[in-house]
């Protein structure tokens, strides 16, 4: 059995020794370097492009929108984002021109020698503001997507409820800060355009290349280089860079590498959607949730990109892991002239969970019910329905999971000791906070059915086994767990299983590496494909499989021995996309996190001093990797809650440097104690569910609940930077 063991990472050694090749490590003979010329303001029209005559432009390859052979769009959900601006543009730092040269020094000088003359157009920078007619850029009202989820009859309940409690909660943008910045290398090889680089979703890149070039899919090969982190930031934007690199390579007739430096990466690429979530909740005197009205608003930025699906996941998670008979949820994602907000670990859920879990504490304090008790009374129990009418039948005991966290955190004793500490200390204030939440694994609603993912497990002529998927290992360990799953199915050691480097010319489309879907959905397919391989060998498993594969090849020269599996919707999962009713996700993971903080009233700075993360994620495939996912997510969540502040100016990130965009470092972090409960899920291999995103859902509300407890005041917006906390506290004191 390799599932459940700490199998050593298959990519670990190459990364530790520096042998792994990231896109910036790659060079090819005759390779040029590319650079991007970008729009200078939030909205406008290009009037003229000035090339300084001091530069000999004949030495440069210059590409503009007229060089795009197919459709000038980065094809995703919609095709509204141009690959290169032709005339009108909708945000600062949009790509207009591409230039390439063999010398990075000449390239630097040339970039500075190009000036765009633009005519400004009225920009809208605040998603909450009503757009004036001249600011409308999408549909009738700039709303990129709206959706409604309805259950029961909340209106009637509000009229007679003992308490109605309202609150509005805000979360800010967040930058991914993957270690490796984005980049692509494009070149022609054997008649194909090969695009290699840093990405999460090779087939999304392929789709967008196909659209922009108007060539058949076979004309491209999209290959993953080693990827240094993604967090969702490499879900959609790599398509832009891939198109750019390929356009330059095509025009130059030479390989072109286009790699962003940190500043360009932070300025130009996507961020987490800022949100404003309003809750109005009817509760009885014991705190039972009688009816909920939730309005979710996301700033979508300048183009549609992934906002509709981010909004969808956000809305579905917005009522928390609680039972309530009457719910009305309305969501809107609106256009602003900012960089497009895109995928970021959690995908809308962290925003709405922040609001829900803050609101639970607000409800508790208003009606005088302890926050732990309030959650205990409202947790979903088997057989009850969630907001979309999905029946909760997971078998996880949410109360027991919460109690485990409280015990590990010594929650009740700490609350007592904080009360006496805070009463006597001149300027330090301590607090402890809790957040309970859930996260759906895989694509929302019918998404997995539409994706129709496919996985192959091939027996190679030398007797080895290779897993072929489009899943990218960006540090999270997918290659390792897929090897474990295949090895498990074939009863061999994981070391005997190879995992193919994703290359669209050779691996099947198993879907994007996003949405906490790889372990559960692709893992299950890998298991089935491995079983199919074994079946083709007459059911052979275990060490003798190597010999059996070799014998098969000897008997079938020149043929391929491929086990296959294609996604089939489980019959029990039913979803109606028109009414937003049904099983939004096949499985959910569940968690309660507790954070302890200390606020220094001299500096208004918050330090997180202890953190306990207990979760139920189905079967844990690899405990070390799973713990790493949770700890990393918690760190990113703490960053989002109190450190990370995207400062916008004219809709663009002004603090686009790591000195000025503060992510927490190890000296800022508490011990992060991780615990797993395992309720096997029928939908994942060996019972696994998703884990990658959930850990970023809980830290922000837990931390801010703790801060609110420490300072005795409700804090409703993040990031809680010291400057903001000072304003909030001193503003309230008059």
């Amino acid at each position: 059995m390799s599932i459940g063991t700490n199998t050593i990472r298959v990519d670990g050694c190459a990364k530790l020794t520096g042998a792994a090749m990231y896109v910036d490590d790659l060079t090819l003979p005759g390779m040029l370097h590319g650079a991007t010329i970008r729009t200078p303001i939030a909205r406008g029209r290009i009037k003229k492009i000035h090339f300084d005559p001091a530069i000999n432009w004949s030495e440069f390859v210059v590409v503009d929108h007229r060089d795009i052979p197919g459709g000038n769009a980065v094809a995703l959900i919609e095709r509204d984002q141009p690959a290169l601006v032709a005339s009108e543009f909708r945000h600062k730092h949009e790509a207009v021109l591409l230039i390439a040269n063999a010398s990075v020094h000449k390239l630097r000088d040339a970039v500075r020698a190009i000036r765009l003359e633009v005519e400004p157009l009225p920009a809208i920078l605040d998603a909450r503001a009503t757009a004036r007619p001249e600011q409308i850029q999408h549909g009738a009202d700039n709303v990129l997507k709206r959706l409604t989820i309805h259950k029961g009859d909340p209106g009637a309940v509000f009229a007679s409820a003992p308490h109605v409690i309202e609150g509005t909660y805000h979360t800010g943008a967040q930058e991914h800060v993957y270690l490796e910045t984005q980049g692509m290398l494009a070149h022609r090889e054997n008649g194909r355009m090969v695009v290699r680089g840093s990405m999460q979703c090779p087939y999304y890149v392929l789709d967008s290349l196909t659209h922009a070039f108007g060539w058949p899919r076979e004309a491209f090969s999209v290959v993953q280089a080693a990827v240094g982190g993604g967090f969702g930031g490499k879900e959609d934007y790599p398509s832009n860079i891939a198109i750019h690199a390929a356009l330059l390579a095509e025009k130059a007739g030479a390989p072109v590498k286009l790699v962003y430096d940190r500043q360009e990466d932070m300025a130009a690429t996507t961020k987490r959607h800022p949100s404003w979530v309003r809750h109005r909740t009817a509760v009885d005197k014991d705190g039972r949730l009688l009816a909920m009205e939730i309005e979710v608003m996301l700033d979508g930025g300048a183009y549609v990109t992934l906002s509709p699906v981010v909004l969808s996941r956000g809305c579905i998670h917005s009522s928390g892991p609680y039972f309530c008979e009457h719910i009305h949820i309305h969501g809107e994602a609106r256009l602003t002239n900012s960089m497009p907000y895109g995928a970021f670990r959690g995908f809308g859920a962290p925003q709405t969970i922040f609001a829900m879990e803050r609101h639970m504490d607000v409800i508790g304090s208003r009606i005088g019910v302890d926050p732990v008790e309030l959650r205990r009374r409202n947790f979903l129990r088997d057989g009850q329905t969630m907001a979309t009418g999905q029946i909760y039948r997971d078998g996880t005991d949410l109360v027991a999971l919460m109690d485990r966290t409280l015990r590990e955190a010594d929650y009740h004793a700490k609350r007592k000791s904080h009360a006496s500490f805070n009463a006597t200390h001149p300027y330090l204030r301590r607090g402890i906070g809790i957040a309970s939440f859930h996260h759906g694994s895989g694509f929302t609603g019918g998404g997995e059915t539409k994706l129709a993912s496919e996985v192959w497990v091939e027996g190679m002529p030398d007797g080895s086994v290779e897993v072929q998927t489009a899943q990218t290992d960006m540090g999270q360990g997918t290659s390792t767990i897929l090897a474990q799953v295949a090895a498990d199915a074939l009863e061999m050691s994981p070391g005997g299983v190879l995992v193919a480097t994703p290359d669209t010319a050779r691996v099947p489309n198993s879907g994007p590496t996003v949405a906490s879907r790889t372990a559960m959905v692709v893992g299950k397919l890998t298991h089935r494909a491995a079983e199919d391989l074994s079946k083709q060998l007459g059911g052979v498993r275990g060490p003798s499989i190597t010999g059996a594969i070799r014998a098969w090849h000897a008997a079938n020269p020149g043929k391929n021995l491929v086990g296959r599996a294609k996604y089939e919707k489980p019959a029990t999962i039913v979803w109606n996309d028109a009414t937003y009713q049904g099983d939004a996700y096949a499985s959910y993971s569940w968690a309660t996190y507790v954070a302890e903080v200390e606020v220094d009233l001299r500096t208004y700075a918050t330090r997180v001093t202890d953190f306990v993360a207990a979760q139920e994620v189905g079967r844990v495939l690899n405990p070390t990797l799973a713990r790493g996912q949770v700890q990393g997510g918690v760190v990113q969540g703490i960053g989002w809650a109190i450190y990370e502040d995207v400062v916008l100016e004219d809709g663009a990130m002004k603090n686009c440097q790591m000195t000025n965009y503060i992510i927490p470092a190890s000296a800022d972090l508490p011990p992060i104690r991780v615990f797993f409960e395992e309720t096997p899920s029928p939908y994942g291999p060996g019972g696994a569910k998703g884990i990658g995103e959930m850990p970023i859902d809980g830290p922000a509300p837990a931390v801010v609940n703790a801060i609110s407890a420490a300072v005795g005041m409700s804090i409703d917006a993040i990031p809680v930077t010291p400057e903001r906390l000072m304003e909030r506290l001193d503003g309230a004191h008059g």
Partner: protein
Amino acid sequence: MQVHRPATLDEALQLMQRPDARPQPIAGGTDLLVSWHHRAKESVRLMDMSRLEELRTLRLTNESLEIGALATYWDVITSAEISETFPLLAQAAKQVGAMQIQTRGTWAGNIGNGSPAADGVPVLMAYDATVTLASSRGRRDVALCDYWTGYKKSVKADDELIVGIRVPRRACDFEWFHKVGARAAQAITKVGVAMVHSADGWRVTANSVAPFVCRCRAMEAALDRGEVFQGPDDVRQVISRDVSPIDDLRSTAAYRLAVLSRLVFFRMSGHL
């Protein structure tokens, strides 16, 4: 790019003499190389000082501590004697960047760079340090508190090098430094303050609250008079005459002034 590597201080000062081709000195390079990415032109002329062994000194005598221009934060941190005699120097040094920076960054470079956020400067200034400047014209000593004349402007002439820093030894009964950064390490100071008391009276210095690191003389005078502060606002009344904080990407003027006042108040009211 052109790099000079003088073998002696005389040679270095000769190089600094040429107005048309004056090189920029580079010590640890931890400030200079940050701006490398944003260089305006490709032609840069540097003077690598690493061969000037005579500037590497770090010597504690009966009268003073002599810090050569190439002495690093790490040199101070790892000297038990210096850390004990001038605890604030070691405390500040440990809060500069992180270990990689501490082992390369020099005290002289911290002064030479002239950032108002420099962490080495407030503690040196609180100990009444003087800077020794040298050129082929000769040497002179300048009190560190008189060194700056404006934002990144100083009394140092273009042909002068900082060759050393001298910190006088005296008995102190109060020494305190507090740095507020946006995180625990690798953070540029948002507001910082150092306070020292000796027979010569109070010294209060602050960084990131004015165009250059400065002494807070109104605050010093108030403390010397024995003024008692009832709350942070009392401190603010006085110290706001000494500083002129601004809003920038890293913080706000209001925050800087409020936190400076609160830090000083809570420290003076006896709380650690």
